[in-house]
């Protein structure tokens, strides 16, 4: 059984269908790419998967459970994590503190018990864990710097680290390497490649074709809300419909 199944997933805004009848499934351990021209609905799909939007129609089955109506904060419990196209971080807190926030559900900070300060030891453990995750994504020396002082690339890495703190089974990455140079993208690719080994399946939206083609085992292509192709990188590169949409620029990519 696949980890994630999308059935007739549709989201309309007024008369516009941002996502229209998308059907696909993700297997555990996959690294799936989601590509398409601007406005194709890729971020909307991520918003639907992460609970920031509710579908107009269709189902999202995660691990056999229908989650399309679950609110965003509960999806984290289910094991779905995400990053944002524009990093959404607390600029007033340190990098480390931002990463720790990702473990919110494990800390139960909204529950009364924690109000009385009962969880302090767990907090220390989580901070150590956050430091380790931070090191793993390459933020080693920056952990105590205020997030507001980080470069764009480091902000993205912080978001990934934060999402990883919740130990997600499915991680949704929205343009993780936008604006990065080749060296930086390669580093991120390494980090992502290691994720399935740790139990995290990945869905990554990107425009950077070398990055996507080199990293993903399968790629889904969206155009104007519809899924027009779904296959291996080789299949996608030679799919006539995809070529038409991208005006044939995919063919030369490695």
């Amino acid at each position: 059984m696949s980890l994630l199944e999308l059935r007739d997933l549709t989201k309309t805004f007024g008369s516009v269908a941002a996502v229209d009848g998308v059907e696909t499934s993700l297997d555990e351990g996959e690294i799936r790419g989601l590509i398409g021209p601007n406005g194709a609905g890729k971020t909307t799909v991520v918003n639907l998967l992460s609970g920031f939007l509710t579908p107009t129609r269709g189902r999202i089955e995660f691990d056999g459970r229908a989650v399309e109506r679950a609110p965003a904060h509960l999806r984290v419990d289910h094991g779905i994590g995400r990053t944002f196209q524009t990093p959404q971080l607390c600029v007033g807190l340190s990098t480390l503190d931002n990463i720790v926030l990702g473990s919110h559900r494990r800390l139960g900070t909204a529950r009364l018990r924690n109000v009385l300060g009962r969880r302090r030891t767990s907090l220390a453990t989580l901070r150590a864990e956050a430091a380790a995750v931070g090191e793993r994504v390459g933020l080693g020396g920056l952990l105590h710097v205020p997030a507001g002082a980080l470069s764009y690339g480091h902000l993205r890495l912080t978001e990934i680290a934060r999402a990883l703190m919740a130990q997600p089974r499915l991680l949704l990455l929205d343009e993780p390497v936008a604006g990065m140079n080749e060296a930086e993208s390669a580093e991120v690719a390494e980090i992502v490649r290691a994720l399935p080994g740790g139990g995290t399946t990945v869905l990554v939206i990107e425009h950077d074709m070398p990055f996507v083609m080199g990293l993903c085992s399968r790629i889904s292509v969206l155009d104007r809300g519809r899924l027009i192709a779904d296959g291996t990188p080789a299949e996608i590169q030679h799919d006539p419909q995809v070529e038409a949409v991208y005006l044939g620029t995919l063919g030369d990519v490695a």
Partner: protein
Amino acid sequence: MASVTRRRLVEWPLTAAVLVALYALAPIYDGTFFLSFMIDVLILGLAALGLQHMVGDAGVLNLGQAAFFGLGAYGGVWALQHWHWTTLPAFGAAIVVALAGAIVMAPLLRLRGVYFAMASFAFGAMLFEVFGQWVSFTGGENGLFLIPFPRIFGHTFVSNRDVYLLVLTVSALCYGGLALLMRSGYGLSLHAVRQSENGARASGVNVARLRFIAVAIGVVPPALAGVLYAQAHSIVQSTIFGNDQSVALITMVIIGGVASRWGAFAGALIAQYIAVYPQSIAQYRFLLYGALIALLMILLPGGIASLARTLAGAHGTLRRPRL
């Protein structure tokens, strides 16, 4: 977390000093109008404190706070007059009634900031109408009379000085309680939501519930203030729980600085001073409130607290909301 410890080391001694000074006022000014004035300042400051928590810490712009002031007052007075409870249990009754009001208002929290502001304004207006019209319960505009003096564990607070000390203690406890609360995981979640709501949500924070909790906590100080007001003045009339009062309360929070707890009391001091002392301009009080807010929004949106911070050379408005 670690980022703010430095400022804490300065805050506590300063707060303690101010508190001692406030307590000292009691014997010094006993029997004077000034002490009565300070009683009202503290009571209103308490109501404003709850509002500051909602607005500054949780981003909930509640333009109907006076309604909770009233709910607490009427709930407490009912317990005092009909069940002959003493003050502490009356506080309990007041809190229950105010919380009921918060629960009724809860569905509105789904609305985004400004729309909630409008809805809360309507909510406050609606409750004000109820206060005025439901004469059998509230006494309407004429009000309820002969409300007993505060009584706690057998001690009756009759003199000005006693009442002042009581009000000051309750205010200090609420202030301290909120300060502690904001240092806990709850406070941290609020900071996170304020700085990045999407990031917090993606990390699993139940933003809607968090905001409701903030509102529930924020209606407790005004509820207590309502009971204290009723017992300090022996009379409570619906006219003081209307939109004017809600406006006055938000004015106090803004003048003091939306991000500052002590600012709520500083704002209350200034607003009440304008309302009471200069006899000639007392009638222009709301005009001054309005003009003050308008000016502050342009020049000093952070209120007095931000001015104090600048003068003290403190940098890093790390956790402060930006207006």
